Each structure stands twice: as structure tokens, then as C-alpha cells.
């Protein structure tokens, strides 16, 4: 009760309800346990021993070999093995009871990790050089203070296997490449062990019997548990063999989750916790693979996201994509008031609250005994189901009464109706969408909400200044890859790749130019374009806006939203216009709304800047190609295409330009090249690249 939810410490899913632990218990456990003391010699219950045996037997095939090797070589070293475990990423339960008092000095100072189930979560393959206690030693393993039913039951089976341990050792014992692979720290640990060979197996067996008689020792166990936590901090990268083995098997999510957790911990304090000689890149690669497996993302998307977020934020982002956003509704002030609507819905058994102080019309619905999308109030048009994030672009647009407004990609009509509501049904809204099927829902929604000032069309947005121009404001909610709304559509995790993103970006660039051209800069009240996407990719957002800034007489102005993160002005090797900090980004994990990007542009001149003069056309293509943002080949082609489209509209292109374009797209027919000077020019330009 009342424990803080820790996303990094995901609860293991047990087979049954009783086997599941309460969340966060492991944190609090540390408080109850007595502080760590150096003296050992505590006793274990029979359950503890059984469980320990089970852990060893059941913790994955990849470990089995190594473990058995260890068993064979130093047959009697027993609890000393735990010294070497300090080097490995360790499970805290395995405690040597023969630990000497001097050992504490070398321990890592950090406290706090005592997740008793972590041995089950421990990635088998992450432990490179981990040594395991012998069969005799199992009895010394510490009982975790929280008992898990399934674990105990399984322990019975594993106990029966104990006797067969020795035989298995013989099978595997032949290979002896172990020694060369030992890391320095492990060699040190082995030296330590050899110094303490005095301890005998008999001792431990005696103790086992003692324990069975007297079921004591909880406090002492507590101390040892703490000791273990301290020493088992460091996380080692798995070797390639381990990874290979892992790929052969079905993925073990517990293991991967634990590894992600450890990996993130290392990455956050890389200087102190890194494994000597391993590059950060190796950790990052492993983390990416693990995240891709655990959250089932495509490698491409995860790579993009890792560029976007620092590691800890990335986990939060991925985690928040797994849970749906709260359901929000927007009051239709054309028909009712928020207070009346809230009262009516509460009477129907809906539990709701105002959305936030930034919205006067939004309500957030916690739970409802009736379907929210089919109440009589909904059908009467008193509210619209709408995500919190899609209120923001309209607020940024700030439509005024009696204006002419264009909504370029309007389906399903939520933002359009919000615009109409802010304009109090005055003026004109042209709602356009290229998809006639999706327009049906717009028609229904606008009529239901009582919007009377809208005209609906299904033109292609790119035709726009030709169909109709001279608008006071334009809202462009561009089609995008949808990386901000993964919680709504998890298919995005896997079905997007570089090409899709760039295709979207290309379309968006065309649309934003159309949108800007459709605006009348001389409008007394307006002259604004709001560009928004539900994507968080830089390619679809800052890059597109930056492109528009270069191509048209527009400048970025503040969106009027006092929250949200500022847009990037620099991203990797790209440098955007400094005013891009006026744009706003919204993320699911920071604002609990869909991922969104909003930019508000003010058009200050209707003239279209002539970027492409005849004489510079070839030169310019070359310089554009050298621009850092165009590192990727498909981008190159696209940019050139766009440029061509823009320029051909205005003036006749030099032949060289056309020639170069066609050559890049497909082999140039010989007869087209019948203009020697132009072709020469083109060749020069190509070689200059």
C-alpha cells in the first residue's frame, strides 16, 4: 500500500496470484532487516537450502556448463566462490557462510539492492565469469525473507537432483579453457580462496543438521543478505557466445529485464561502474538489443529513440507507451457548458475531473459505468472524445471570429470542431482531407456537434493554394509515422523504417509549403500557420519546419503554450534555425498525453523567395547535397525532387537541372541528352561532389 511504483523494478509474473509479490517490497525490506554486520555463521532453514539448490539447478542452461566446471576444479572451496561473484553481476541470495571478517573491506559501498527474486531474473548469459557454489555449499545459501510459493515447491524437485550433481561434473569436466578467460578480478578472487582452504565441507554439513533442529537465524540472515547486496553490484557484459546461446532459445523476459536494469545503472554512472576495457558503445548496443526484445520494437525505431532520449528517459518513454493515456473529452461550448456537462455525466455514473488549468473545456474521465462514446449527451453533441494533446494545436492556432481558416488534414474532425467552437460558428472553416472514407466521420462529428460554418472537401493537400488560398490561418496536422501515439497503435513499433519516416517527411515538406502558400500574410488578424504531428521524430518535425523557414517568408513565433519541451535547435549533426526553440514537443512520459510536436509560423510576406536562380541552380544542388542533413541517399534524391518541383513552378529550368534529375532517377535516354553544353555543365557538377 502506498508504495511508489518503480517502472524499472517490474514485478515478476508468477504462475499464480499467491506467488506474486507486492510491489516495492524489496525496497522496504531493507529497512526492516538489521544492519549488516561482519560476523557470519548464521543458519539456514531447510527451505532456504532447497531453494538455493533450485536456483542453482534452474538458472538456465548457459550457466550450467560454467558452474559445473567450477564444481570440478576447486572441489571444496565452497562459500569462497562468492568472492569472485563480486566481479560478476550477482544474485544477492547466494551467501557464503564462511565469509571471513576481512572481506567486507573490498565491498562496494552501495546498499539497497535486496530483491530476493532477482536470482530468477538474473540473466544467465550476462554472467561471464561467475562461479557457483558447489553442491555442498548449497545449504549455506541464504533464505530470502520473502517466501514465494512456487519457488518453494520447485525446490523440492531440485533437491532430488542434488545427488546427481557429481556425475554431471564428470561429463563436463574435460574442457579447461576456463583459466585463460578469467578476468583479473576473478583471478584475484581465486587467490583469496586458495588462502582459505581450511574450511571444510564437513563443517557446512554439520551446520545443515543443526539448522534442521533449530529453525532460527532470521536476524543473521538479514545481515548476510545486506552484505551480499553490497558486493554484487557490478554488471558485466555478456560475451558473444552467451548471446548466441540466448538467440537459440526463446527469449527470457525476466532475464532481459534484469539486464536492462543493470545496464542502465552502469550507463548512468559509467565512469565508476563500467567494466574495464569495455566501450560505452558495447553497453549501448546490448541495451538496444535488450530493449528491442523486451518491448518488441524494431531495431530502427529504437535506434531513433535512443538518439532522442537519454537512457533513463528512454525507459520511461517505452514504459509509458505500454499504458494507455487517460481518456479525455472536450466540452462542446456551442451546445453546453462544462459545468453542466460534468454534472450530467456524473449523474450517469462517470467519474471525471477538469483536465488541467490550461484548458477550459477539457475533462478527464477516470472510469465510467456507461460507454462514454454512446451516452445521450454524446449523441446530442455535448462533447467530443479527444486526446488532450490534440487540443493544443488549436489553442496554438488561436482562431478568431469571422476568419477564414483551413484545416488541411481534418479527419476525424476533433480539431476542426474545436476551431469552430472557438470561432463560435462564425467565419468559414474549410476542412480538407485527402481520404474520402475518413471524411464520413468528419461529416458525422461536425453535424453532431452543431458546426455550421464548415465546408468539407477531399482534395489532396498539396494542391492547396490552387484550389483556394488567402486564408487567415491554416492548421496542418500532417500525416506522420505516428511514433508519438504508440500506446494507441502498437503496430508502429515494428512496421516503420527509415523509408517510411523519410516518405512522411517528404510529404510533410510539400504540405507545409502548400499550407504556407495558402495563407494570406496581409491578413489583419492572422497570417499564421500551425504545423503539428503526432510523431516525435526530428525528421518529421524540426527538419520540416527548418525547411519551411528556408523556403518561405515565415518566422517561428511562440505557440502560446506555457508547457511542453522546447524543440531541438541542434540534433546530432544537424543544425536548425535557433528560433526552433519556439516550437513545442510533448511526450507521453512527461506530460501524460500523446507525443506531439507543435510549431506556429507567422507569414510576413506573400512573396515566395526565389532561391533558385538559373545560374546557381546547379551549384546549389551541389551545395545542398553537401549539406550535413543529407547524409542518406534517399534524402538526396528527394530534396532534389522537391527543389525541382518548387522551381519549375516559377520559371523554366535550365536543361542541366532536368538532365541531372532524370539521370539520378533512371538511366537517361540518349536522345534526351542532345544538348551538349548542358550535359557538360552537369558533368562538372557531378564531379564536383
Amino acid at each position, binding site marked *: 500500500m502506498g508504495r511508489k511504483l518503480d517502472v524499472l523494478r517490474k514485478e515478476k509474473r508468477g504462475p499464480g496470484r499467491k506467488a506474486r509479490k507486492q510491489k516495492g517490497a524489496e525496497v522496504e525490506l531493507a529497512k526492516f532487516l538489521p544492519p549488516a554486520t561482519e560476523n557470519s555463521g548464521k543458519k539456514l532453514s531447510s527451505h532456504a537450502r532447497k531453494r538455493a539448490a533450485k536456483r542453482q539447478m534452474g538458472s538456465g542452461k548457459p550457466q550450467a556448463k560454467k558452474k559445473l566446471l567450477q564444481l570440478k576444479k576447486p572441489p571444496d572451496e565452497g562459500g569462497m566462490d562468492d568472492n569472485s561473484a563480486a566481479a560478476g553481476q550477482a544474485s544477492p541470495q547466494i551467501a557464503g557462510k564462511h565469509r571471513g571478517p576481512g572481506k567486507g573491506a573490498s565491498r562496494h559501498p552501495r546498499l539497497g539492492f535486496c530483491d530476493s527474486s532477482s536470482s530468477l531474473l538474473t540473466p544467465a548469459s550476462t554472467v561471464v565469469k561467475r562461479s557457483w557454489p558447489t553442491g555442498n555449499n548449497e545449504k549455506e545459501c541464504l533464505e530470502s525473507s520473502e517466501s514465494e510459493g512456487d519457488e518453494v515447491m520447485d525446490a523440492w524437485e531440485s533437491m532430488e537432483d542434488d545427488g546427481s550433481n557429481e556425475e554431471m561434473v564428470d561429463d563436463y569436466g574435460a574442457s579447461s579453457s576456463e583459466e585463460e578467460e578469467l578476468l583479473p578480478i576473478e583471478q584475484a578472487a581465486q587467490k583469496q580462496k586458495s588462502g582459505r582452504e581450511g574450511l571444510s565441507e564437513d563443517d557446512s554439513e554439520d551446520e545443515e543438521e543443526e539448522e534442521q533442529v533449530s529453525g532460527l537465524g532470521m536476524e543473521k540472515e538479514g545481515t548476510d543478505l545486506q552484505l551480499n547486496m553490497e558486493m554484487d553490484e557490478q554488471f558485466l557484459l555478456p560475451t558473444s557466445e552467451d548471446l548466441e546461446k540466448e538467440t537459440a532459445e526463446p527469449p527470457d523476459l525476466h532475464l532481459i529485464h534484469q539486464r536492462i536494469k543493470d545496464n542502465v545503472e552502469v550507463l548512468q554512472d559509467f565512469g565508476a561502474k563500467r567494466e574495464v576495457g569495455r566501450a560505452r558503445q558495447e553497453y549501448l548496443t546490448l541495451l538496444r538489443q535488450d530493449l528491442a526484445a523486451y518491448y518488441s520494437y524494431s531495431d530502427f525505431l529504437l535506434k531513433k529513440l535512443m538518439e532522442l532520449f537519454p537512457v533513463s528517459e528512454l525507459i520511461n518513454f517505452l514504459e509509458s507507451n505500454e499504458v494507455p493515456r487517460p481518456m479525455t473529452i472536450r466540452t462542446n461550448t456551442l451546445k453546453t457548458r462544462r459545468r453542466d456537462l460534468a454534472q450530467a455525466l456524473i449523474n450517469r455514473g462517470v467519474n471525471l475531473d477538469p483536465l488541467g488549468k490550461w484548458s477550459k473545456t477539457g475533462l478527464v474521465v477516470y472510469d465510467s459505468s456507461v460507454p462514454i462514446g454512446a451516452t445521450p449527451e454524446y449523441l446530442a453533441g455535448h462533447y467530443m472524445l479527444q486526446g488532450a494533446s490534440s487540443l493544443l494545436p488549436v489553442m496554438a492556432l488561436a482562431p478568431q471570429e469571422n476568419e477564414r481558416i483551413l484545416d488541411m488534414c481534418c479527419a476525424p474532425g476533433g480539431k476542426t470542431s474545436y476551431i469552430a467552437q472557438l470561432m463560435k460558428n462564425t467565419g*468559414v472553416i*474549410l476542412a480538407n482531407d485527402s481520404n474520402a472514407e475518413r471524411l*464520413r*466521420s468528419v461529416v458525422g462529428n461536425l453535424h453532431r456537434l452543431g458546426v455550421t*460554418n464548415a465546408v468539407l*472537401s477531399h482534395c489532396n493537400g498539396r494542391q492547396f493554394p490552387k484550389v483556394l488560398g488567402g486564408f487567415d490561418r491554416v492548421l496542418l496536422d500532417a500525416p506522420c509515422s505516428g511514433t508519438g501515439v504508440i500506446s494507441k497503435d502498437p503496430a508502429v513499433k515494428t512496421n516503420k523504417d527509415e523509408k517510411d519516416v523519410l516518405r512522411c517527411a517528404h510529404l510533410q515538406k510539400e504540405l507545409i509549403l502548400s499550407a504556407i502558400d495558402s495563407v494570406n500574410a496581409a491578413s489583419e488578424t492572422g497570417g499564421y500557420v500551425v504545423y503539428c504531428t503526432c510523431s516525435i521524430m526530428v525528421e518529421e518535425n524540426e527538419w520540416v519546419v527548418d525547411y519551411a523557414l528556408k523556403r518561405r517568408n515565415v518566422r517561428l513565433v511562440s505557440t502560446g503554450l506555457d508547457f511542453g519541451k522546447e524543440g531541438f535547435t541542434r540534433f546530432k549533426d544537424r543544425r536548425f534555425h535557433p528560433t526552433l526553440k519556439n516550437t513545442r514537443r510533448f511526450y507521453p512520459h512527461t506530460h501524460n498525453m500523446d507525443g506531439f510536436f507543435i510549431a506556429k509560423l507567422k507569414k510576413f510576406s506573400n512573396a515566395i523567395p526565389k532561391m533558385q536562380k538559373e545560374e546557381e541552380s546547379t551549384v546549389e544542388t551541389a551545395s545542398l547535397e553537401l549539406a550535413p542533413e543529407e547524409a542518406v541517399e534517399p534524402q538526396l534524391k528527394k530534396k532534389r525532387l522537391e527543389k525541382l518541383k518548387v522551381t519549375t513552378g516559377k520559371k523554366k529550368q535550365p536543361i542541366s537541372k532536368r538532365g541531372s534529375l532524370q539521370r539520378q532517377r533512371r538511366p537517361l535516354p540518349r536522345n534526351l541528352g542532345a544538348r551538349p553544353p548542358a550535359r557538360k555543365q552537369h558533368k562538372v557538377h557531378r564531379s564536383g561532389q
Partner: protein
Amino acid sequence: MRPLTEEETRALFEKLAKYIGENIQLLVDRPDGSYCFRLHKDRVYYVSERILKVATNIPGDKLVSLGTCFGKFTKTQKFRLHVTALDYLAPYAKYKVWVKPGAEQSFLYGNHVLKSGLGRITENTAQYQGVVVYSMADVPLGFGVAAKSTQDCRKVDPMAIVVFHQADVGEYVRHEETLT
């Protein structure tokens, strides 16, 4: 998109008059600018001149909807009112029927209004008079035709139909694709 012909206008106005009577006048002569009816793809739209001007720029095949859709002409040139006209019928309606909260849901699923669900009814409603159906909270839910006059309603048994269903706001969900 074109203005209505004489016949079409008559068919439309006759239909509207069943619900709002002489209040049609208020629809045509409005103080806040001139409004008109336009026919586009057999649908009749009620739209202000200003919006009409914008809509004329859109190619006919690309235009989906403008202003408010009132209904459509059938192939036999009869006029059918759609539920989308409710916003204009409700404020001007002469005869009204209120349904009890328990019967609301039934009406919104496309059923007729039964005597048992009848909350209130305008005095001296004639039989087969067009009526607008409201919830008890005065939210317009749809419209229909009175199956019985007000006097008859008092006598009939509880399961008798008192209002024939014509359109209800549930159609926004049920028939979204045929609204226009």
C-alpha cells in the same frame, strides 16, 4: 451544387412545415446574414452565403459537405429529413414530445416511443403531426410523427405506440456512413 428547383423547394418546405409550421420563415429570413438551400449530390444543404462563396471554389466532385445537411431527395423525388436537420427543427418546433429517462435509450436505438415512455406531450397535437422528441432534460433526441392525438394518448394502453420514429441522434453512431 445548384439552387433547388421550384418542385424541390415545395417538397422541402412541405416537409419542414410538418415540424416547424410557419417558422420556416425564420429559417429563410435571418437577421445574421442571408442563408439559402443548395442541392449537392441529391442532398439539401442549408448554408450561409458567405460559406457558399468559399464552397463554390471547390470542384464539385471534391466537395463533400457544406453548412448543414437537411436531408436528401429520394429517387422518386420525395424529400427525407435527416437527423442532421435536428439543430434547426428543435428550436422552432411547434409540437414536442418528452420521453422519460428510461425510454430515452430505447428511442435512441431506433424504436418508436411507447405510451409507457411518454413523459409529456404538447397539448392539442393532432394525429400524424410531426413532432420533435426531447429528453426530460430538454435535450433534443430526434423527431417523428405522432401516432395518436393528445386526447387519444390519455386513453391508450401503456404498450401502444404514441410517436413513430423517423430519426434520432443515435444515427450519428449507427449510420455514420449514410449521413451525407
